[in-house]
């Protein structure tokens, strides 16, 4: 079977195209997503799709409450919308629709209705100051009723998008601005290569399944999106010093693949969670506590977090670099941990 190398942007675009061709209930909603002569959404994911699906690539006003309300109502009536925001931060504008309506409607109905919809939101601290920067994963992880996926490779982006569209529940997909691989005028400086060989066959990455990106014996590193890539770099730095890191990419943040993390921690005895969002109320707090509650006897060292400071993201490139956990900072934390325990 032949394969093609695609960026995350290209993989998502192809997955959306295929899902729309496969299922007439699938449609897209968002700002600037299908304007002829425009750019196919903030990161070009839907570029050109309107040529094949003019009726189902729906350009919206700058109106996030409407976007997610439209998605919610259409899903309740049996459609399968894919709604996106240009920057994850804008989800706050639509918070009632997402957190009060989409997350709770099925439950309030006593399970009598379903909301098969996908929400897509770019995240990441990327030179835009505080309001186009937030990693919102932990905020939404605290809201029951939404599944959350976060692909760090094009292979996973394709497989998770397919799984999300075909799922019967609301799925929120966080995508990282520095991993898209968007080209031309929408290219991001500081991007990392997250492209993958994409097989021809119709595969899915099941929601709820994490993956071991690198095997190791001394420390378990858990990181998603950009932090997965930075964790791999940190692992490479430490390898030369004789510290062996296992790197786990959860891929789905809710429901979390706790077993995969537990199995790794049973082996290494040390858990470090790497997160791009502030430490307060974060991913590390949740993942770390789940591990502490379930396998306390397996821990040789305190569960450790490498996170952004408890401030909004700053603009200054100097401060921004200090804000985002860099591979060097991750490596230094692990060095200290292994030395002490």
């Amino acid at each position, binding site marked *: 079977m032949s394969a093609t190398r695609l960026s995350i942007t290209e993989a998502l675009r192809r997955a959306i195209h295929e899902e729309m061709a496969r299922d007439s209930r699938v449609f897209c909603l968002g700002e600037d997503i299908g304007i002829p002569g425009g750019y196919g959404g903030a990161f070009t994911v839907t570029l050109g799709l309107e040529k094949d699906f003019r009726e189902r690539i729906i350009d919206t006003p700058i109106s996030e409450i409407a976007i997610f309300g439209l998605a919610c109502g259409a899903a309740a*009536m049996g*459609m399968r919308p894919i709604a996106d925001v240009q920057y994850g931060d804008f989800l706050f504008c639509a918070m009632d629709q997402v957190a009060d*309506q989409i997350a709770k*409607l099925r*439950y309030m109905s006593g399970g009598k209705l379903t909301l098969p919809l996908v929400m897509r939101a770019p995240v990441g601290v990327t030179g835009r100051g505080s309001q186009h920067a937030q990693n919102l994963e932990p905020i939404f992880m605290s809201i029951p009723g939404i599944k959350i996926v976060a692909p760090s490779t094009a292979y996973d982006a394709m497989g998770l998008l397919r799984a999300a569209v075909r799922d019967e529940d609301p799925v929120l997909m966080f995508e990282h601005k520095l991993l898209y691989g968007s080209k031309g005028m929408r290219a991001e400086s500081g991007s990392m290569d997250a492209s993958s060989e994409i097989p021809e066959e119709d595969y899915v990455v099941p929601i709820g399944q994490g993956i071991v990106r690198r095997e190791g014996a001394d420390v378990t590193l858990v990181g998603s999106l950009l932090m997965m890539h930075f964790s791999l770099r940190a692992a490479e730095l430490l390898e030369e010093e004789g510290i062996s890191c296992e790197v786990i990419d959860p891929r789905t943040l809710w429901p979390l693949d706790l077993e995969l993390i537990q199995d790794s921690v049973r082996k290494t005895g040390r858990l470090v969670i790497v997160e791009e969002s502030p430490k307060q109320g974060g991913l590390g707090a949740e993942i770390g506590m789940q591990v502490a509650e379930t396998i306390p006897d397996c821990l040789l060292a305190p569960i450790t977090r490498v996170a952004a400071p408890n401030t909004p993201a700053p603009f200054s490139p100097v401060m921004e670099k200090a804000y985002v956990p860099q591979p060097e900072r991750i490596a230094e934390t692990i060095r200290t941990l292994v030395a002490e325990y």
Partner: protein
Amino acid sequence: MSKDKGNKGNGPAAPAILKRLGRDKALGMFRRMLEIREFEEQVRFLFLEGKMPGTVHQYIGQEACAVGVCSALEDGDVIASTHRPHGHALARGITMEEAAGELYGKTTGCCKGKGGSMHMGDLARGMLPAIAIVGGNLPIVAGMALAFKLRGEKRVAVSFFGDGAANEGAFHEALNAAAIYHLPAVYVCENNQYGASTAFSRVSLVENIADRACAYGIEGRIADGMDVFAVHAAAAEALERARRGEGPTLLELKTFRLCGHSRRDPNNYMTKEEKEYWQSRDPIPACERLLAEAGWIDAAGVEALKKETTARAEAAIAAAQAAPEPKAEDLYEDLYVSMEVPR
């Protein structure tokens, strides 16, 4: 106290509407209004006695709005309601047993006891579980209408909301979206003059909410929300417009709560004159008079109907009281379709 200017002289006169509806349909509408009133009176009593859990926002006084609109719907149409949904639920065809079951949080409730008073609804009967965030249902109704339009179905989505919702951002975003896509939706604003204790006149310089329709380039209409037949006629026109593909209507119904905002509210913020005026316009005696003038019902007939309705409401509530409680463990059910709740 000029709040009821409504559609006087605008819509068709009552006799013409009655003639079009026919005796059976008109009597059925009266009967449904009585059912809502009786249900709410009994619920109110149970509440004051402390025999019902939770809280309630009651519909007493606004019956003509729900019944007038819902009597104009077709089977495939879907409505969405608010934190004050009992009247809409009964008007749309959810039974008193299912409604009472939900109020008691029983398994026989229309949401199996997971919704409660503020989330009453059942899509199988054409009603989204009620959305208790003020203004929250308006964008969702646009979405339901979008689904109908994308599939080329002749169905209409109807949003019920209050004057309070008209100052929410969701009102603006939803109406604009429904307008630009020419969606088959009807936005029914029941202007009962008060958002909780705050008079609408204190929070808007625009007297008629329907006037805001021009901001979205859509039709705005006003009808007398105390006259079930006037509401029916206005709703039928708006629904027809939606079905023809001519887009949404903002239909304002001038009405009044003849009860508190929620369970123990004595309405001390309303003037005596105001209360007396609206009491004199109670939609149920008003409907009764029109039906009597048409020669379709007499005092004895009304009495018999009321007695029968009281008995049915009592039976429904008794059934709900006797119905099984859910198991505590059931709280983990019904959140996701394809996933267990992680514990």
